[in-house]
């Protein structure tokens, strides 16, 4: 019974972990990741790590909701309406993943693992509580302080206004003429992408230029690099790029 549940949950964890990087919709990828985490939590419950399993379920439910929110906010094509492939160095990554899997598996199979299982009927949650507030209290408190520092760091990194004024001050180079768009903006995004942001201005057209960038990303990597070269050498194609996003809106 336990074995059947274990193998089912393992298969579910691995399959949904694989689906994370294969589905078009990023929301679906987020939920696939959540399924993978919950399967691992189920395996932890089977191994009578009650607290770890339940805490993982709670944590992942919240975390994946946050992740889905960020997907919708920042990523292109969150609903997966048209298929796309957002990958680079594909073969190298597949190779690295397979090598990691095979290497770790061989290490596991070649090792003579000790066998000293959990005694039946042991109250693991009580053990954990005594440990957390007893012998290992320093470690536990350190983790707590680390989480506090993380919260402060996250707020400091993501806040628009710092204590001493706008956090973007000094981050952008000054304009070529007073009040103009920042210099170096075109170089920043590279190639055809720069045309939108740079010439479109930062007010109304910023958003449009951004969509244009996403569209051209979908068009494929090959065209991307070509456009980059053309942009740097000749200013004429730049005009073309600038008008592309306007058609879409």
């Amino acid at each position, binding site marked *: 019974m*336990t*074995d059947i549940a274990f193998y089912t949950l*393992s298969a579910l964890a*691995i399959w949904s*972990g694989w689906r*994370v*990087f294969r589905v078009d919709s*990023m929301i679906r990828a*987020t939920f696939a*990741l959540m399924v*993978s985490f919950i399967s*691992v939590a189920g*395996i*932890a419950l089977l*191994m009578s*790590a009650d607290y770890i399993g339940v805490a*993982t379920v709670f*944590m992942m439910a919240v*975390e994946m909701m*946050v*992740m889905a929110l*960020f997907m919708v906010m*920042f*990523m292109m094509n969150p609903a997966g309406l048209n298929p796309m492939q*957002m990958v680079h*160095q*594909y073969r*190298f*990554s597949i190779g*690295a*993943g*397979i090598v*990691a899997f095979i290497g*770790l*598996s061989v290490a*596991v*199979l070649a090792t003579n*693992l000790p066998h*000293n*299982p*959990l005694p039946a009927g042991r109250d*693991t949650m009580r*053990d*954990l509580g*005594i440990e957390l507030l007893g012998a*290992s209290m320093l*470690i*536990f408190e350190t983790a707590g302080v*680390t*989480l506090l520092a993380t919260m402060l*760091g*996250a707020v400091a*990194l*993501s806040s628009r206004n710092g204590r001493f004024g706008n956090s*973007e001050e000094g981050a952008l180079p000054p304009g070529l003429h007073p009040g103009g768009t920042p210099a170096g903006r075109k*170089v*920043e*995004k*590279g190639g055809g*992408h720069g045309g939108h942001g740079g010439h479109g201005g930062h007010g109304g057209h910023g958003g449009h230029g951004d969509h244009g960038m996403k569209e051209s990303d979908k068009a494929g990597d090959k065209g991307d690099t070509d456009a980059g070269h053309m942009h740097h050498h000749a200013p004429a194609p730049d005009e073309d790029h600038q008008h592309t996003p306007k058609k879409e809106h």
Partner: protein
Amino acid sequence: MTLTAILIVASALFGIGLFGALSQKSFVMLMMGLELMLNGTLLAAVGFWSFTLAGAPEGQLLAILIMAVMAVELAIGFALVVAVYRKRQADVIEALGTMKQ
């Protein structure tokens, strides 16, 4: 359910996560790869605790630390995504070419 089977499942999750972290272009997908790697690590830690430690609670403590690492990674990662997006309107890794300097 043996320790070997659990560790092989964990290494499969780690491998998939490594593939995702190396291959994905967008920041959020990259972080999903990292989370999947930590998922495998968590499974391995719980497995070792359950099968080799005779119930010593330090193993569970290690699993809790891994979960704290997950939370830290997610929070700081999203804060960095927000900061980079706000400064450079960038949401893919290739847009950060000037960071190499």
